[in-house]
């Protein structure tokens, strides 16, 4: 017999079959595409909309707020998607939760903190119900939550219509005056600092109107604080805890995870509950800021959440993704959407651009990931 190749080295500590990735190693992370996308988007609008006010204090607050909204629901959708499920009822849940808060606090006259707490409990229970049905029937969550999309929206229209004979319930801001929990969702922080910055001339002040002389930005809305808190919470939960490992496992292969002793059902139901929680945070912030709840709130938000998560590098099929990535996806989405307005794009073409940029972002994202990791 012929021995045509040399014996391999006995120690395998280095593997000659792997080309060195060098610096690219450090870049292999799910949020990579999101980072590149964010840079690209800022460069783009930096060039096209620089003098439109997009990057002055007011402009920054503007797209930050929109992005923060997306982030709040994207965190929930991201964890749920990594756990292998979908929730199409997020948008309807936003409308429903807002309406509950309004009915409790305005119609029933409960203190706002109680209205909010009870709403949270109910919303999270509905999330659990969603999850329970998915687990028990084995149906795809797409279908189950689609049903809840209809059901919750229906109640959001029916309840105020029956109780108050109108579909927008206002007056919540007045009810929330001085309420501690109301302020947690609708207040602003760092007001003093911005006041001082305005006086010091660091940010511009209003020139005309009722608020002339005040700084254009007078504080950071709690919405943004909530977004940051939820992103950090989600990130830590996912990457640093035992439960996070279970989330990955449940989405990667539910059967395998179950066989290894991961309580998959519990994990999935918790994630449905968390998604409902995030939707309720969104709703509470919105209701507190705008002072009213309407039957049309939250329409199509489920898609915006899913888009943000996918731009952020998560797999629709579960088991892979990152909360930071989803947050960057939300940022990209928010900046693109508002940027188009700053850039003055023809409004009926707005959706066309949105679609194209989204597609572009996801393709770029995937392409970069493959280039770096060498997948094919």
């Amino acid at each position: 017999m012929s021995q045509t190749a040399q014996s391999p080295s006995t120690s395998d500590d280095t593997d000659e079959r792997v080309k060195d990735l060098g610096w690219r190693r450090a870049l292999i992370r799910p949020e990579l595409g999101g980072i590149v996308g964010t840079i690209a988007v800022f460069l783009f609008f930096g060039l096209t909309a620089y003098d439109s006010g997009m990057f002055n204090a007011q402009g920054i607050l503007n797209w930050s707020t929109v992005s923060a909204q997306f982030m709040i629901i994207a965190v929930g959708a991201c964890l749920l998607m990594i756990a292998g499920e979908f929730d199409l009822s997020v948008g309807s849940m936003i409308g429903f939760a807002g309406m509950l808060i309004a009915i409790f606090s305005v119609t029933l006259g409960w203190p706002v903190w109680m209205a909010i707490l009870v709403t949270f409990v109910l919303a999270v229970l509905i999330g659990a119900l969603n999850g329970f049905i998915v687990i028990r029937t084995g149906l795809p969550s797409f279908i189950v939550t689609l049903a809840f999309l209809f059901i919750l929206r229906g109640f959001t229209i029916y309840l105020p219509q029956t109780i108050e004979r109108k579909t927008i319930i206002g007056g919540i801001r007045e009810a929330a005056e001085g309420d501690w929990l109301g302020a947690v969702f609708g207040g602003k922080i760092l007001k003093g600092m911005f006041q001082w910055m305005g006086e010091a001339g660091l940010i511009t002040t209003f020139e005309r109107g009722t608020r002339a002389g005040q700084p254009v930005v007078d504080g950071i809305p709690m919405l943004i604080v909530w977004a940051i808190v939820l992103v950090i919470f989600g990130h830590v939960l996912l990457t640093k805890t035992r439960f996070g490992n279970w989330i990955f496992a449940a989405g990667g292969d539910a059967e395998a995870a179950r066989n290894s002793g991961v309580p998959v059902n519990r994990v999935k139901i918790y994630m449905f509950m968390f998604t409902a929680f995030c939707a309720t945070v969104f709703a509470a912030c919105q209701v507190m800021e705008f002072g009213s709840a309407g039957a049309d709130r939250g329409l199509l938000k489920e898609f915006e959440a899913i888009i943000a998560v996918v731009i952020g590098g998560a797999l629709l099929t579960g088991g892979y993704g990152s909360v930071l990535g989803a947050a960057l996806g939300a940022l990209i989405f928010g900046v693109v959407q508002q940027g188009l307005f700053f850039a003055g794009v023809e409004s009926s073409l707005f959706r066309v651009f949105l679609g194209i940029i989204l597609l572009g972002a996801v393709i770029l994202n995937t392409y970069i990931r493959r280039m770096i990791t060498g997948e094919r």
Partner: protein
Amino acid sequence: EGEKYVLVSHAPDSDSWWNTIKNGIALAGEQMGVEVEYRNPPTGDLADMARIIEQAAASGPNGIITTLSDYDVLKGPIMDAVASGVDVIIMNSGTPEQAREVGALMYVGQPEYDAGFAAGQRAKADGVSSFLCVNHYISSPSSTERCQGFADALGVELGDQMIDSGQDPAEIKNRVLAYLNANPDTDAILTLGPTSADPTLLALEENGMAGDIYFGTFDLGENIVQGIKDGVINWGIDQQPFLQAYLPVVVLTNYHRYGVLPGNNINSGPGFVTADGLEMVEKFAGEYR
């Protein structure tokens, strides 16, 4: 006694403004002792609305009250309904001429383009030459007609003065802010209903233009009334939806019971609501106003 009337609207079922309509027919039904139903296409798709009119006709009511938001789409089903013996009254959208053509008894409402045009003339008289139209339901034709009428009365191109604001209040607010930020010399704002007016109010409050910029809106709501009272909104165009729903039921019932019918169409609007005489409006805004 016990006549049955169906009102078919073109609005998606989350649209708040139609609430007044629902209250209007409910009240009329109660007062006249007739059975009333409200029907609408859930997504606002007019083709689906045509099916609903066909359905309503098949279920054999005494009368159908419907909007005529797209003459082409709806004329077939409405004419079929008329031919099969159902009396029809057109409300809200469409024109008196179209109502006559489809064989309806009468028309109750406010032609959208004309209302927009009237608003535009008023604004022009007040010295407005550029504006922002906040369109929260751009896929529906009547929304564009309002903006178009306004622009035509001002004698300017509509162009990108109309923005597709979406229906999320935060997005509406921030888009208005973004637009005003990028176009600070805008003279006026036109909103098309409470959905876009409420967040716009907040936006103006936030950027300090409240009371400074010329602000007109279609349709009334709680916050709009408050805005008019506070002097932030210059006027609201009230087409009195309550009447659009209430009167047809009354007219149809009396026609069926006693054979009496008004000889003319009823224009429920446009009426401009300004800071004067707001008391009743305020009390019932969003409910009957």
